[in-house]
């Protein structure tokens, strides 16, 4: 009789320990184990949509990092007396927030596509007429974009709006440094390197397409 009581207690203890282990395992998997990192996209081919012959000489590169933040608050301030609003209080009244860190590059240079330049020469001099330097590329990509904070539901168009704003900020930041002038100087230097001549080289940036 005594043995059977001990046996029942042992079985009960084993069962309780088993249940505790199972609960621990479930809690770990639900809250701490993240399988998202392991998600791999399927192997799909790329398709070429267009091929264009260009002639762009980039002479200045501006690299920057911008932070884009958008936040939406609850209309009413939370009250500590209303338990339904405690979560609101916990979130500092923030309803949703999306913050991106975007690293990008702005390239300045000359667009010489379709022979958009003129060269004339005589016995003493060479005249090269080039177009004004301009922004050739604003480079952004997912590998240089970080989703720093995401709270609440945000649509793709919300995110696109933030990324477009980041791109514009990159351009605005680049313009502060008046890089067209630097691009002009660098272009002159590059053409002097490419044209090895005893003649006088005159470069101007007033070629009209």
């Amino acid at each position, binding site marked *: 009789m005594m043995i059977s009581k001990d046996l029942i207690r042992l079985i009960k203890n084993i069962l309780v320990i088993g249940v505790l282990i199972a609960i621990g395992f479930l809690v770990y998997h639900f809250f701490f184990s993240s399988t998202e990192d392991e998600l791999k996209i399927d192997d799909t081919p790329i398709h070429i949509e267009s091929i264009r012959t260009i002639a762009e000489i980039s002479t200045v590169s501006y690299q920057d990092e911008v932070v884009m933040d958008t936040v939406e608050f609850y209309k009413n301030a939370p009250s500590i007396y209303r338990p339904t609003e405690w979560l609101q209080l916990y979130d500092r009244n923030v309803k949703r927030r999306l*913050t991106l860190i975007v690293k990008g590059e702005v390239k300045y240079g000359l667009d*010489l596509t379709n022979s958009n330049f003129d060269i004339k020469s005589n016995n003493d001099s060479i005249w090269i007429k080039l177009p004004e330097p301009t922004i050739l590329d604003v480079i952004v990509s997912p590998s240089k974009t970080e989703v720093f904070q995401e709270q609440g539901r945000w649509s793709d168009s919300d995110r696109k709006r933030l990324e477009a704003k980041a791109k514009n900020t990159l351009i605005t930041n680049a313009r502060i440094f008046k890089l067209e002038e630097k691009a002009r100087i660098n272009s002159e230097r590059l053409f002097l390197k490419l044209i090895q001549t005893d003649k006088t080289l005159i470069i101007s940036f007033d070629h009209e397409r």
Partner: protein
Amino acid sequence: MKKLTFIFFVSILLSGCNEENKLPEVEVYEIRNIGELSTTEYTVGKIIKLDDKADEWYKYGDRKILINCKAKVKAGVDLSLIKEGDITVSGTTITITIPPTEITSFSMDSKHIHTEMESVSGFRDAFTHLEKNKFLKQGEAAIREEILHTDIIKDGRLNAEAFLTDFYKQMGFEKVIIKQGEHDDK
């Protein structure tokens, strides 16, 4: 009174736990002098496909997503790498050794990224932007790898040769010889 005091302390505890993420103050910029001649531009598309099946017994439901994305890739030569001695002139003949053709620009703008299909069933969470960005990064890496298997490098080289030939001929040279240099391990 006791109830009010309890609510007050719980609220203090709850709000104290929220370590608000501070936005990083970024002021990192770099201005570099470059000299890249881009001569070909490929626009490539890719469908990013992911089927996240519930492979664990405690998960219920599936998640699927299809994202259509485009990348603009340019190739050409880095003219700043031309050294003294790479250009030689003999009468009306010019010989120029240009650096190897490479990818000069890779851009994957969000303007050309569209989620075509997103399906979530059961008790699964919807895809977050953090997750979508991870899939896009994988897609970008795949495009960067696969683009090298197209003719972009060959086209870049041929177009660079055509551009330089035209340029030097306009300057009065009758014969333009262009040689392709080898990769320099910097």
